[in-house]
């Protein structure tokens, strides 16, 4: 999705000069007037229905949220403008700060852990011929297709006081650690983290597998001929080649971790106490239970901005360098001279 729409026609015209030479020259440096007349104004009719839906049910509500976020508003009486008050509350209110902190903890479980596990397994799989790949892929991807409510019910059952997790602990003589995992003040947040890791690791693995399949096998052969071990091979070939997949895995897992309403609502609702609260939970509660519409809106806007920033940062940090795709770079690459010959 890198090329922007209006340039598509121009690009193709440039690359196929034989068929579109007559218009190609004019399009290259259009004056304002010819530029306007070269636009397809009727094309707006095609775009309009989709944009109407998007505008009315997405863009307009966002605008309203921004507007509310500058008011102290309970949804019934007239709101009073408070400037940036709601935003400073987001970062100073101790409950909301705790919720942001919980989000950071969950980021480790939802994003960092699955990506690392996925990379390790993918690195191991890059070295062998995998039998039954299609079946493994389908099974590993399973947690992704289940409704989060089903996931919550399944894990509540698994982690219950008399559930399978504690049964296993008691069976191996670690019964003293058995607890009501989602109901205990100390274990609730990490337990939710584990559920998140479970939902996401399969996705990461499947993403990385699709990247590994695209790596030229001869690169690995060459690296091995040059005496590179498994670790060197992983850092020199597999990791750099997977850059696009890592980028998308991080974006998907981080946005999931930062939103994360469904899973928490259906497991702990933020409890016990406030040990598992997250921002999206407060957005819901402030908007629909506490009638603090201004603060809920400010929090939602902050959440949105943070997610957008993360996406931009991840994409910038992991974008592909100049040069041909999938060619690893760097002076320490052992297989490079073989590869280029």
């Amino acid at each position: 999705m890198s090329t922007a729409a209006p340039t598509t026609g121009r690009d193709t015209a440039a690359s196929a000069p034989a068929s579109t030479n007559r218009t190609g020259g004019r399009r290259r440096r259009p004056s304002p007037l010819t530029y306007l007349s070269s636009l397809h104004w009727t094309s707006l009719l095609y775009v309009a229905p989709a944009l109407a839906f998007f505008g009315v049910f997405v863009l307009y509500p966002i605008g309203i949220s921004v507007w509310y976020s500058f008011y102290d508003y309970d949804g019934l009486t007239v709101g009073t403008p408070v400037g940036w008050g709601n935003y400073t509350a987001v970062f100073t209110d101790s409950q909301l700060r705790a919720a942001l902190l919980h989000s950071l903890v969950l980021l480790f479980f939802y994003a960092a852990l699955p990506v690392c596990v996925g990379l390790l397994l993918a690195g191991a799989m890059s070295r062998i011929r995998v039998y039954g790949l299609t079946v493994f892929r389908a099974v590993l991807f399973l947690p992704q297709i289940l409704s989060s409510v089903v996931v919550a019910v399944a894990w509540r059952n698994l982690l219950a006081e008399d559930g399978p997790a504690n049964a296993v602990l008691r069976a191996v003589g670690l019964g003293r650690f058995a607890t009501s995992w989602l109901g205990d003040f100390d274990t609730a947040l990490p337990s939710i983290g584990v559920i998140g890791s479970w939902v996401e690791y399969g996705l990461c693995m499947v993403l990385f597998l699709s990247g590994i399949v695209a790596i030229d096998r001869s690169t690995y052969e060459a690296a091995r001929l040059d005496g590179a071990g498994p670790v060197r091979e992983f850092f020199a070939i597999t990791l750099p080649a997977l850059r696009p997949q890592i980028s998308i895995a991080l974006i998907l897992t981080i946005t999931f971790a930062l939103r994360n309403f469904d899973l928490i609502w259906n497991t702990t609702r933020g409890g016990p106490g406030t040990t598992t609260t997250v921002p999206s939970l407060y957005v819901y509660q402030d908007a629909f239970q506490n009638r603090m519409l201004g603060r809920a809106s400010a929090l939602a806007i902050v959440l949105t901005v943070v997610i957008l920033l993360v996406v931009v940062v991840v994409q910038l940090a992991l974008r592909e360098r100049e040069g041909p795709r999938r060619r690893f770079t760097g002076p320490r690459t052992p297989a490079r001279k073989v590869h280029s010959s």
Partner: protein
Amino acid sequence: MRIARSESIATHALLVLASVVAVFPLASIVVSSLQGVTGSSSGLSFTAYSTAWTQGRFGSALLSSALVSVTVVVVTVVLAALAGYALATMRVPGGKVIVALLLVGLVLPYEVTVLPLYEMLTGWHLIDTYGALILPQIALSVPLGVLWMRSFFASVPVELLEAARIDGTSRLQSLRLVVLPIAGPAITTLSTVLFLFTWNEFLLALILVPDNPSVQTVPLALSFFSGAARSSDPAVTAAAAVLVALPVLLAYVFLQRRLISGLTEGAVK
């Protein structure tokens, strides 16, 4: 150079372990749902399922989910095909801005739209109706749909469209007669992905149809049911969760290849 056989076995063992972990939670609720309600005789029993089915109104919830998901997918695909076609093959005024807005829409947390949506739909007397579920979800599916169809139409050879134009077809005709017939796979994959997202959507249903059980979708029905039954029989709750997961699992058996490629490769694009 060959890799040692032992390494291959070790890696396969890791894969098997990872797969067992992936299915274990689901398998465990299937097992506890079949153990029967407390007090009944031991052995396999489907009492939990019949109890869950009648108490949880899952028949009506499945119908609502099907109706909402099919409507959202069909309308979104039509809107996305039209807009994607224009963005890929014509010089749309403001096209760059439109694409940028849609890209932002891809990662947008719904949380930022729900409160104004609730007030807006209350004003239109649509809260607790199918409209409250369908209209916003079409809009939220539009970014993925349009960008998806746009990247498909951009991959159609220009010569094909040129040839159609020389033959005297209008732009709308070439969409219908030339491009759509070859868009089958792209549209099927998009529909599968959108269907899954809509089927599983929870937050919007929780907020927009809170008090009308007859239009509530399966995730919401399961959430209410398991919340209310938290203190009651775990076998019944487990059975309810299996009932809710079953249609998606069955569809997954047949569509997994398409779904996985749609959710992963589509994202990499």
